[in-house]
């Protein structure tokens, strides 16, 4: 510590601090002057001007870009469009004996695609606020377009046009929510901005089975039992493949068959020979009881 002489000691304290901060600072203080574009658009070339003379190293650092190039001071630096595809802040640095820097922003280009998220993929009919969609406009380079844009949402069911609505984007997002339609089948939903559109298809399906009923008769092979056409409470046929579980009980034994609905009807064969009581269930829906006598 002997190198801290009394000369330093006489400097006011604040000044001492600045002096030593300056001494410890490794970055140069004398900066080169750079003129960067006031506005730039993604995918477009830009020009950055420098002043002074002599050789220098030019750097451009931005999202997805890092360029290092030897330049002559006082000449313009041309930045190619492919180096400015990502929107965001870019940092230009010029170093000769010392370094200078400037920042500029590249704005997103025009909307070229729409990311459109629609939910759910399958929706029961007649449900309020059951369908929702969110759209994000992106430019050709994958930048989110943040300027307000009018997005048109359209939805059409198999038998009806559900809605058409125009929603303005805010911070690059537009969304909607709507009720599902009355009939089952594909629901086509489209989001569009001018010529750019994004279609989606979701399935409108029947709700839970309603008034489930069975009938049956004894045949040579056993008791052939089947449901009446299975519909939901709005009268739409329940999706084929939905399992109906048939239960037959009698004489201390029981038989069960998990049968899928095919063509609105589920069928099963019960081989019990004695008198049995048969019922069926699908989800929370239960059927009537059917009593069949023995052979």
């Amino acid at each position, binding site marked *: *510590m002997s190198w*801290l002489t009394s000369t*330093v*000691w006489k400097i006011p*304290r604040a000044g*001492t*601090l600045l002096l*030593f*901060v300056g001494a*410890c*600072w*490794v*970055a140069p203080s004398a900066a080169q002057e750079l003129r960067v574009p006031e506005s730039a658009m993604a995918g477009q070339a830009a020009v950055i001007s420098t002043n002074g003379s002599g050789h220098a*190293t030019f*750097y451009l*650092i931005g*999202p*997805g*870009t*890092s*360029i*290092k190039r030897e330049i002559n001071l006082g000449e313009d630096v041309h930045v190619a469009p492919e180096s400015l595809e*990502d*929107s*965001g*802040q870019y*940092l230009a*640095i010029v*170093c000769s004996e010392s*370094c200078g*820097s400037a920042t500029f*922003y590249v704005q*997103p280009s025009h909307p070229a695609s729409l990311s459109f*998220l629609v*939910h*759910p993929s399958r929706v029961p009919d007649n449900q309020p606020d059951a369908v*929702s969609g*969110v759209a*994000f406009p*992106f430019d050709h380079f*994958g*930048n*989110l377009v*943040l300027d307000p844009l009018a997005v048109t949402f359209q939805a059409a069911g198999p038998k009806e046009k559900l809605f058409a609505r125009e929603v303005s984007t*805010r*911070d*690059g*997002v537009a*969304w909607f*929510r709507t009720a599902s339609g009355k009939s089952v089948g594909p629901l086509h939903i489209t989001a569009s901005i001018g010529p750019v559109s994004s279609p989606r298809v979701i399935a409108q399906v029947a709700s839970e089975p309603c008034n489930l009923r069975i009938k049956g008769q004894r045949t040579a092979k056993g008791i052939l039992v089947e449901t009446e056409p299975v519909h939901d409470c709005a009268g739409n046929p329940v999706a084929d493949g939905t399992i109906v579980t048939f239960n037959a009980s009698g004489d201390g034994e029981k038989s069960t068959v998990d049968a899928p609905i095919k063509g609105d009807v589920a069928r099963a064969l019960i081989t019990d020979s004695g008198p049995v009581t048969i019922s069926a269930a699908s989800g929370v829906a239960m059927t009537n009881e059917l009593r069949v006598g023995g052979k």
Partner: protein
Amino acid sequence: MKNMTQRILRRLSPVIYFAAACLSLLLPFSASADAPTVLVHLDVNKASPRAVEEQTSRRILADYRFAWTNLARAVETDTIEPVRGQFVGSAGKWVAETIAAQQKAGLTSRHINQNHKLTATFYAPEGDVMELHDDAQFHLQVLDGSKLIYDQPVVMHYIVLMTPGADRWVIRQLQSVEKF
């Protein structure tokens, strides 16, 4: 005795100032050698149309911090490995491009003492995407090889899109803007 102590302290005070000043300037360098300091504060009160669940909020906070910690590592070491799986879509593309471009130019960058004020502005009705605004402050250093060519505190504004992945929320869009 008391006067003596005061005199010694007064004499030593410039030394203490010098040491403190140098230390404060050296701290960022020493910090960059270890795990980068990343502070994230998340405000979900403005999120709509869906309210952010507490568990989701905790997850977002942890995953966003984790992503920035690893992003800082990735751009400092010019390797994609630390950020694999945390940036997808456009964000994944530009992170990969950034690292590749840095490698090509022989540059590295350091994001030191990060402080992110994150505000959730949009949370989709089905909870499958969230938009956030990040007011980020950090000390940015750019190095050409071992030569420091930029060393400044910076304030950045990011528009962030996050979506739920298999086991975490991932960053799908990370786009800096001039202002919100």
